[in-house]
């Protein structure tokens, strides 16, 4: 396939063919850019192709990775460590490194110390060293998240079961935990203590402060029948609705889904490990098996990008094989 750009509708130095071409890899990540309180995302492959233009033009860029599931070795992907490495390689290949990474949970498959060890060891290859975490349910399986908190909250002031906030370049980031103390029959849950903390955390911020919230399970009702939602997320969003720019980043469902409601953008990221079925299209939300030769193309199959100043989402759905 030629790298020649035949159609450049967006005048961004990349056409659809070129975009699909460079999406042909398994590990995925999105580069988030904040400029003037408006968030935009582009895939890592796009950044690699687009040169310096995007990061240089912005105030802050960071990167989201999700659902590494280190330790998983079933048919859906027998080598999740390798695809995690590939994702990190893509980050390292970016002409301008992101300021930091966020990982939206499920670092491991079974919360085992050796799985966390492998995750940490592989992550050492990443040139971007600052990483902010939230736990997935797979990271807190048997100890209520004790081991996770010991390892991944060293650079922040974790409260309660591990929630925290921090500021970067005038943007307020809020890391929430919605995978603990879940109730029978229910969904993800934040709980009263965390919600009260959240209310206090943002009360003195100006409404023009861009807010980025990240948590593992979606904070919107993606598909409650599969548990893809958070029971008390509406209360959290109530504390945040006065802000002019609110972006909610989640993982958990191993596919890109987006919803824009007024000034709120909800987004779920792809996994670096294996895909999961679209809501309601399978008997259960378990790992989706595809032929080995199709794994990468499937993971790279759907990508979505925001562009600054645009409300419409650009979605690419293509088979890259």
């Amino acid at each position, binding site marked *: 396939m030629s790298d020649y750009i035949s159609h450049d509708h967006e005048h961004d130095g990349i056409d659809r063919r070129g975009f699909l071409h460079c999406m042909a890899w398994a590990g995925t990540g999105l580069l988030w850019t904040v400029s003037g309180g408006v968030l935009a995302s582009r895939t890592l492959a796009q950044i690699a192709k687009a040169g310096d233009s995007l990061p240089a033009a912005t105030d802050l860029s960071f990167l989201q990775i999700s659902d590494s599931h280190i330790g998983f070795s079933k048919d859906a992907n027998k080598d999740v460590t390798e695809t995690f490495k590939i994702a990190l390689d893509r980050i390292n290949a970016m002409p301008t490194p992101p300021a930091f990474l966020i990982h939206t949970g499920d670092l491991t498959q*079974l919360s085992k110390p050796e799985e966390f060890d492998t995750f940490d060891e592989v992550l050492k290859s990443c040139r971007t060293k600052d990483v902010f975490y939230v736990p997935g*349910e797979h990271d807190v*399986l048997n100890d209520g998240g004790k081991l996770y908190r010991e390892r991944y909250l060293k650079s922040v002031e974790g409260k309660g079961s591990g929630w925290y906030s921090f500021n970067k370049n005038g943007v307020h980031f809020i890391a929430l935990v919605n995978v603990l103390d*879940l109730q*029978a029959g*229910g969904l993800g849950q934040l709980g009263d203590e965390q919600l009260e903390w959240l209310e206090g955390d943002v009360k003195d911020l100006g409404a023009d402060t861009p807010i980025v919230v990240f948590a593992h399970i979606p904070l919107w009702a993606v598909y409650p029948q599969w548990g893809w939602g958070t029971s008390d997320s509406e209360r959290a969003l109530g504390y945040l609705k006065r802000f002019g720019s609110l972006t909610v980043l989640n993982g958990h469902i191993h596919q890109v889904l987006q919803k824009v409601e007024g000034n709120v953008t909800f987004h779920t990221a792809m996994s670096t490990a294996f895909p999961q079925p679209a809501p309601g299209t399978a008997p*259960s*939300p*378990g*790992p989706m098996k595809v032929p080995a030769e199709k794994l990468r193309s499937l993971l790279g199959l759907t990508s979505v990008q925001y562009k600054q100043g645009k409300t419409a989402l650009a979605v690419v759905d293509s088979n890259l094989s």
Partner: protein
Amino acid sequence: MITLTHKNKMAALLCGMSLLNLSLFALGGEMKNADSTKQNRIEIKDFAFNPQSITVKSGDKVTWINRDEEPHTVVSVEKQFKKSSALDTDQEFTITAGAPGTYSYFCSVHPKMTGTIVVVK
């Protein structure tokens, strides 16, 4: 002609005992299968407990086995019996049914998954 030495006699005796033990063991297994224990198996498949409701006698064993590629747990809603650790694929968890009553449980990883054990005398 083979002469049974003392050593050989001992070996034959041990061998015979082993066979006897094996057959007794097998018999025990059959007896075990013949009682209600075999029926008290709950398969975890496609993010659901199957059967979702099961009736057992007090003192019976109840065993869950995870057939999903996703870890699941078995947790009593009212903390009435010990909870399982995370069960990986094909791992089992067994409890002994206690006093008669209705026991609700769920998977603490995927709380949409719920089930009930009814214990009778």
